[in-house]
């Protein structure tokens, strides 16, 4: 019998402001419904994250105070993080967790709280907070929907997770949302992110299975309720029709950015 997929939820006691529990729950159930063995390790604050023992790591969002506590903890293992991410460790970082992956987070006072420096990315806190429903178009899994609530404006030169159709995204100015680099998925979208975006959930699972050296073929599931919630959100909350958004990502967006390593086959 193949070994189980190992997911780590980092600091759920500190970083669970936006129901990140829902993301874990979604990954676990989608494995179980397919008969795939999966185990989740909740790594409490203060514990050393043993990155080599996991196939997928989730880092959620917290309030400012909690996030600073996490930032201090994480930076102690910066070298381990860099090595693991370079080796292709799948990482899903949401909101505050996403900001922590960058070089720094600049507070309104001008003080810079250092991040993990895994990405060439910076975040600057500004008023007003960017709050509301959001939809983005991604190359690999169509529309991604959810809710955003962040004071930080994030800037980076990596490929984004998607292009903003409605909402604010990384910085409310360049039309990008999130980051998609190596096997890192970073985003401001919660609500939570994965339950209403089953295609993204499965893309994440396939990435993790591949990294774990397990077969990455996923049996299709009955996603009727999930897709109904996705479509209802697009139509009732963002006045976008499903057809409109399906047609909106042109073939050009499918192309990978220059300088990107070739797509694994």
């Amino acid at each position, binding site marked *: 019998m193949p070994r189980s997929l190992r997911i780590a939820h980092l600091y759920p006691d*500190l970083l669970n402001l936006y129901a990140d529990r829902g993301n874990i729950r979604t990954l676990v*159930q989608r494995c179980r419904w397919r008969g795939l063995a999966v185990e989740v390790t909740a790594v409490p*604050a203060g514990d050393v994250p043993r990155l080599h023992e996991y196939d997928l790591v989730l880092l959620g969002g917290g309030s*400012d105070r909690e996030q600073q506590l996490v930032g201090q903890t994480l930076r102690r293992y910066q070298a381990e993080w860099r090595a693991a991410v370079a080796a292709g460790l799948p990482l899903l970082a949401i909101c505050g967790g996403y900001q922590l992956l960058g070089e720094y987070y600049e507070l309104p006072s001008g003080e810079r709280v250092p991040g993990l420096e895994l990405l060439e990315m910076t975040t600057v806190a500004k008023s007003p907070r960017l709050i509301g429903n959001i939809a983005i178009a991604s190359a690999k899994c169509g529309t991604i929907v959810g809710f955003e609530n962040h004071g930080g404006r994030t800037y980076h030169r990596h490929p984004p997770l998607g292009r903003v159709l409605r909402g604010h995204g990384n910085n409310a100015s360049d039309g990008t949302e999130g980051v998609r680099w190596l096997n890192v998925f970073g985003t401001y979208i919660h*609500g939570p992110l994965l339950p209403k975006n089953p295609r993204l959930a499965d893309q994440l699972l396939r990435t993790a299975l591949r990294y774990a050296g397990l077969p990455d073929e996923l049996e299709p599931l009955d996603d009727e309720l999930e897709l109904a919630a996705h479509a209802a959100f697009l139509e*009732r909350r963002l006045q976008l029709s499903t057809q409109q958004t399906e047609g909106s990502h042109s073939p050009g967006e499918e192309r990978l950015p220059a300088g990107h390593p070739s797509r694994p086959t």
Partner: protein
Amino acid sequence: MLLGVWLGKLMAWLLRLTGRRATSLPGQLALRLTPRLLSQLGGQLRRCVIVTGTNGKTTTANLLAHMMEQAGPLVHNREGANLPQGLVTALLQYTSWLGRLRVSTALFEVDEATLPAVAACLPVKVAAVTNVFRDQLDRYGELDGALGKLLTGLRQTQAVLVLNADDPLAHFLGLRCGRPVVAYGMSRSCVQTHSHQQVRDGAFCLECGTRLTYDGFFYGQLGLYRCPACGFLRPHPDVLGVWQGDALEVEEAQLPRVRYHLPVRGLYNVYNALCAIACARVLGLNAEQIAAGLAQFQAPLGRMQAFTTRPPSVLHLVKNPAGCDSVLAAVQAEPGRKVVCAAIHDLAADGRDVSWLWDADFEQLASDPSVVSCVATGLRAEDMAVRWKYAGVARERIACHPDLAEGLALAFAAAAQQGATVHCLATYTALAPLADLLQRREQADASQPAYRPSVS
């Protein structure tokens, strides 16, 4: 000032004449004409009591109002309109056409975010904080923001604070405010024995950031907490409650225990009663006045409100994970089979973000065989349905329709078929329309003798 008073009073009169509820609009209009009206009217009060916090404000304030009315007349925003315009509307009811306030005592339920704007306008002598749970994140930013607003507001008063000792965030508020505190809390004997995943807000020490340890939980973050690093710990309550089914025994230092009959169900409501009793004691009310007040209380809209429909139904307000978990626990404690019908809206007053659904413990429904069916309705019905699916509720037990009337019809059909009671859970803006639909169904069922159960 008089123009504002007149137009406000006139508007209230017109609204009542046309059969509508006048809870906010008159105050809103009056405030537009006379922005300083709240302090002009509030300044005429001799004393004001404020009830704030995340959950249980309306129930606590209404319980306390009945107790205080035993001692004299009272201005009170009874329907829970807890923004400045709601307070002004309540004050206008007792204001003469010459702008004189005829009553000297007021009791206001105040929204946490509103507190800093109104605290300085009122002679606040007693301020109660029921608890500080996460609530409506998109309105207040994050939890640190809600705490900060409470702190700013309370510091502007000269009040005695009545605080929930079992809530680490409320206790922290007391330490930071520098005002005298009367703490109320539940007895050790009321600790919950089952260990569901707890809502973890405030599970870290606000003084030093270390994880709090608990000797026991009451519900959510309420419990017997202490910080292993800095000595922050749950204080011994000045007013201690021992809950025994439909009665609450209350113990104060040096005084004999007093036993009160409870007009409410569920542990979260027992906390509300205990908070109201603690406030009443601070205000100098005696046991007879408190007991008489409790006896006059009627459960407000959506706080386990029962309807004589066929099948029978009960309406519950839910608005955040902690409140929702208490409601789910109360639903499960009811006898017989249940159909759960959740009406989830995401309008401004509900909070536009419904991610709190994932922090609520719906897993307990999946493992309860007495919950035979779950029907999702409201503007975010589909999100609710997905949440149930991932909680482990079997797909064939989940139904979904965004229209409230259609959703409710599905729930009643399932309940009739299975011999179950319908338990409706509604977010704030879904509550009144759902109550309306249930009332109409109640009337329709009463006028249809064919369905009446046989008398023999």
